[in-house]
C-alpha cells in the first residue's frame, strides 16, 4: 500500500483514456482508408464488367436483326417439275425475279453482281415453301428472302460507303440497287431467327448458334451426370468413411494438384485415352463430357469436402447418439446440410466446363460442323469453340455474330446459375 506522500511524489500515471484518444484518430483514418480501398476495388471491377458487357452487347446486338429483301417470286412450273421438288433449280427463280426487278441490268458481270445481293440460303427458303405447299407452283408470291451478308453489313453501317469502290466489298452499282430496293420498301431488317435456330455455316447470314448450344447442352449433361455423383461420392467417402492415413493424405494432395492442372492437359489425356485407346467417336459430346468431367471432378470434390467439414460435429453425434448407423447419419443429416455447399462447388465447376474450349480442341470438337447434334455421339461443337471459330473468320459479319454468341453463352450461364441458386435455396437450412 502506498502512502499519500508516495503517490504525490510519483509522476501522474497516464490515464488509459488519454492514450486511447491519442491513437483514435489514426485508427479511424486507417479504417476509412481501408473502406475506400475496398469500395474502389468494387467500383473498378464493376466498371470493367460494365465495359465488357457494353462492348459485347454493342457489338453483338445487331446480329439479332438481319436484312431481308422482298422479291416477287414466280414459282415457274417450267423450272420446278413436280417430281423434282427437292432438287429444282430454285436459284433460277431468284435470278428471274431479280432480273425482272432490274430489267436494265445487262452483261454477265452485272448479273452476277445482282444475284450476289441475295443469300445463297434463299434457295432453301423457297424449297421449303414449295415442299410445304406444292400448290404454290405456277403462282407468284411476294417472298422475304435473306440478303447477302455484305448487303446486311452495308445496311447496318459496318461498311463505309465513302471509300473508293476498289476498297469496298459492295460496288457502286450494288449500292444503287440496294438504295432502289430500300426506297421501294423491299428491304427490311427482321428478327434473325436463323441465328438462334441454325448450325454453323460458311455464310454468316446462314450461321447460327443452335448447333453449338445443343453441343454444349449434351456435353454439360454428360459432365453433370458424371461429375456430380462421382465427386460427391468421393468427397463423402474421403471425409466420412476413410481412415486418415498416408494414403488419404496422398489422395488429397493429388486431388488438389489435379484442380490446378491446365485444362489442355485433360484434352490430351482424353485424346489418348478416350479416342485412341477406347476408340470413342471424335468430336462427340460424349467424349467432351468425359474430358470435362475429369476437369471438374477435383473442383467438385474439394468444394464438397469443405461443405462436409462445415457440418457441425454435434449433428453427427446427435445422429450417432440415437443409434443411427454411419450411413444413416451421412444420408439423413450430413448430406442435406452439406448439399448447398456441394451445389455451389458444382456450379463453379460446371461454369468452368461451359466456358472451356482448350481440352475440347484436342478431341476434335473444333471441327466445322453444320448439322445440329441430336445425341451424345453426333459430331458437335460447343459455344466457346464456336465463338473461337467465328472470331477467326474473315467475314465482317462474323464479328457481330461472335459477340452475339458470347451473349448467348452468358445467357446460358445465367440460366444455369439461376437453376443452381434455386436448388440451393431449396436445400438451405439453418442450424
Amino acid at each position, binding site marked *: 500500500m502506498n502512502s499519500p506522500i508516495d503517490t504525490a511524489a510519483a509522476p501522474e500515471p497516464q490515464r488509459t483514456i488519454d492514450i486511447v484518444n491519442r491513437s483514435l484518430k489514426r485508427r479511424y483514418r486507417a479504417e476509412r482508408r481501408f473502406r475506400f480501398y475496398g469500395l474502389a476495388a468494387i467500383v473498378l471491377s464493376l466498371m470493367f464488367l460494365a465495359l465488357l458487357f457494353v462492348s459485347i452487347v454493342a457489338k453483338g446486338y445487331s446480329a439479332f436483326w438481319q436484312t431481308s429483301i422482298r422479291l416477287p417470286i414466280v414459282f415457274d412450273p417450267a423450272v420446278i417439275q413436280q417430281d423434282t421438288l427437292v432438287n429444282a433449280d430454285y436459284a433460277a427463280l431468284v435470278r428471274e425475279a431479280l432480273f425482272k426487278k432490274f430489267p436494265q441490268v445487262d452483261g454477265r458481270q452485272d448479273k452476277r453482281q445482282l444475284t450476289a445481293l441475295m443469300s445463297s440460303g434463299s434457295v432453301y427458303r423457297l424449297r421449303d415453301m414449295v415442299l410445304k405447299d406444292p400448290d404454290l407452283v405456277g403462282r407468284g408470291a411476294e417472298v422475304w428472302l435473306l440478303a447477302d451478308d455484305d448487303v446486311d453489313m452495308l445496311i447496318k453501317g459496318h461498311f463505309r460507303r465513302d471509300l473508293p469502290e476498289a476498297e469496298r466489298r459492295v460496288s457502286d452499282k450494288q449500292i444503287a440497287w440496294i438504295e432502289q430496293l430500300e426506297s421501294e420498301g423491299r428491304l427490311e431488317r427482321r428478327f434473325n431467327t436463323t441465328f438462334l435456330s441454325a448450325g454453323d455455316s460458311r455464310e454468316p447470314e446462314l450461321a447460327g448458334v443452335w448447333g453449338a448450344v445443343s453441343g454444349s447442352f449434351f456435353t454439360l449433361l454428360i459432365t453433370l451426370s458424371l461429375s456430380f455423383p462421382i465427386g460427391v461420392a468421393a468427397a463423402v467417402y474421403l471425409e466420412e468413411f476413410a481412415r486418415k492415413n498416408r494414403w488419404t493424405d496422398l489422395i488429397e494432395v493429388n486431388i488438389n494438384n489435379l484442380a490446378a492442372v491446365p485444362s489442355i492437359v485433360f484434352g490430351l489425356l482424353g485424346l489418348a485415352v478416350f479416342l485412341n485407346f477406347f476408340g470413342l467417336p471424335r468430336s462427340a459430346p460424349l467424349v467432351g463430357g468425359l474430358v470435362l468431367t475429369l476437369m471438374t471432378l477435383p473442383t467438385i470434390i474439394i468444394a464438397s469436402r469443405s461443405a462436409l467439414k462445415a457440418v457441425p460435429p454435434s449433428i453427427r453425434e446427435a445422429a*450417432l447418439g440415437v443409434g443411427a448407423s454411419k450411413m444413416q447419419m451421412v444420408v439423413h443429416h450430413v448430406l442435406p446440410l452439406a448439399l448447398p455447399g456441394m451445389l455451389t462447388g458444382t456450379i463453379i465447376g460446371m461454369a468452368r466446363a461451359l466456358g472451356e474450349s482448350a481440352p475440347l480442341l484436342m478431341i476434335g470438337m473444333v471441327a466445322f460442323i453444320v448439322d445440329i447434334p441430336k445425341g451424345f455421339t453426333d459430331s458437335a461443337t460447343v459455344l466457346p469453340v464456336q465463338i473461337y471459330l467465328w472470331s477467326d473468320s474473315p467475314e465482317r459479319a462474323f464479328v457481330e455474330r461472335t459477340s452475339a454468341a458470347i451473349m448467348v453463352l452468358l445467357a446460358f450461364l445465367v440460366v444455369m446459375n439461376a437453376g443452381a441458386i434455386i436448388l440451393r435455396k431449396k436445400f438451405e437450412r439453418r442450424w
Partner: protein
Amino acid sequence: MLTLTRVDETALAGTMTEIHLKAKGGTDAGRPRVSREKRETVGTVTVENPRMVCRNVNVYYGDKQAIKNVSIDIGCNEVLAMIGPSGCGKSTFIRCLNRMNDTIEGCRVTGDILLDGVNIHDKDVDVVPLRAQVGMVFQKPNPFPKSIYENVAYGPRIHGMARDKSELDAMVETSLKKAGLWEEVKDRMDQPGTGLSGGQQQRLCIARTIAVNPEIILMDEPCSALDPIATSVIEDLIFELRSQYSICIVTHSMQQAARVSQRTAYFHLGDLIEVGPTERIFTNPRHELTQDYITGRFG
C-alpha cells in the same frame, strides 16, 4: 455449505445400495483422509445388481492416456454423477459407455465395459443396437435442423420401432411428455427444433433420446449451456426419469450433482479418485483431493 435437500429425500426412499454404503460410511467418521498422492479409488465401486460394469478401463488418445484404470458399476434406476476439474476425463469416460469415442481418430479403449455380460468394445459388438440401448444427451443442445416432430420421431423411425404413423405419433407424444416439453410444443410440432429456446432444445434432445427407449441414458454436462431456470427444469426431469432409466451424468456443478444423483464419482486427471453415496461424498469425503475439490480449493 451445500443444499442437499434432494439427496435427503432420495435417501428416505433409498435403494439397498445406498443403505449399505451409508451404513459403512457411518463407521469411518474418525478415519484420517487418504493422502493427495494416492491414486487408488477410494470407496465402494460395486453395487448390487449393476446394469453396467466397468473394470480396469484405460483410454488413450494416441500416446496420451486420458483414463487410467477406472473401475465402476452403474446401478439400475440410479443417477450416477461424475464430477471433477476440467480435463479430468469424465467426458471421455462417459463417451466410452456407448462407444461415442469410436468417432475420434486415434482413440483406444482397453479394459472391460460389460453390458448384459458382454464387453461392448468387443470386435463383434454392433454399435447401432448398443447406442439404441445406451442413449446420450450432449453438452450443447444439438437438435437436428428439422421439425420438432422429426427430431423425436427420427430414432424410432430408423430402428423401425413403430408399425404405422399413429404408433409413431403416440411415441413422439409420450417422449415429449416424459421430457416435459409436450405442453409447450404440441401446437407447433412442424416447426424447426432449432427455433426453440436453449432449455427447450435440450429437453427436445432428451425426448429424442428417450424416444428410442434406452436402458441407460448418458448425459454429458446437459445443463452447462442453460440458465438456472432451464437447468432446474432439466434437473426435475432427470429426477423423474430415474424411475425408468439408469442415468450417468457428467457435471461441473457440484450443486447439481448433489441435487440429482444418488452416487457420485470424483475424477482427477484420468484417475477415479473416490466413489460413494452423494451425501457422504459432499459431507465427509475420504480422499484429500475430493475434499479439496468440493470445498473449492481448486477446480
